[in-house]
């Protein structure tokens, strides 16, 4: 059962990722990216990482994608404004993307050490739950957690300064 859910979610995420790249209208790209992020959250759920699934949906689908939509509607880009591109560039980028897949898969097949022992099935332990992650976050990772708040403050100040008219 878990296998079938995995293959269904993988199919959905790959198709929607391809539609992000190939759709003409930027609004459609954003909506397909939302579908892709929901399917990745589904992958997190079947990996028993529930906290990350919830955080992923809240931050990506809830905050970042809304930001993208706001900017697209603010800049009035919701039409096919992109000039026609020579077909050779599309062809070359598809070819180079496929070659990158080929190189990575070949490197994976040739490596013998990467067959890590998958001894523990994700459903046997509960490391993805809020309790364990929170314990680790507030003991071992307390310093990065606090530094990320400084990062957010500086990002906020930077965004306000950059997007201000007549800086």
């Amino acid at each position: 059962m878990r296998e079938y859910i995995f293959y269904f979610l993988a199919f959905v995420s790959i198709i929607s990722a391809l539609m992000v790249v190939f759709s003409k209208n930027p609004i459609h790209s954003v909506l397909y990216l939302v579908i892709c992020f929901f399917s990745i959250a589904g992958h997190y759920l079947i990996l028993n990482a529930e906290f990350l699934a919830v955080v992923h949906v809240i931050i990506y689908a809830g905050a970042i994608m809304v930001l993208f939509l706001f900017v697209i509607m603010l800049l009035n880009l919701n039409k096919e404004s992109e000039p026609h591109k020579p077909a050779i560039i599309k062809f070359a980028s598809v070819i180079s993307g496929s070659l990158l897949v080929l190189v990575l898969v070949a490197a994976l097949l040739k490596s013998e050490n990467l067959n890590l022992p998958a001894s523990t099935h994700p459903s046997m332990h509960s490391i993805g739950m809020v309790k364990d992650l929170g314990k680790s976050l507030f003991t071992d990772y307390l310093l990065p957690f606090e530094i990320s708040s400084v990062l957010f403050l500086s990002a906020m100040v930077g965004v306000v300064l950059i997007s201000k008219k007549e800086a």
Partner: protein
Amino acid sequence: MIALEVVDILSNPVNKYVYLSIILFCIGVMGVLMRRNAIIILMCVELMLNAANLLLVAFSAYQGNVEGQMVVFFVIVVAAAEVAVGLALLISIYRNLSSTDVNLLNKMKG
């Protein structure tokens, strides 16, 4: 034969996630190379970040190790800040050029 090797490797459950995230990452690379709209390029960068996140979560879940999921948490934090700054830059580019085409950004002849 190489097809037999693929089937053999798919029997290890982590490898499915490795292949899936390779494919998602390369779709992101393809989008960055193909599109000229800067917003789509930023979205493809998000796609690549998510492919790496998926791989980290898969390894962390199958190893029973909490550290991978903590790294993913911080990657999500940094990605949120990055998107905010990137979109602000995009708005100021649009004010100057009235377009978000990256081919017009050749003032520095890079």
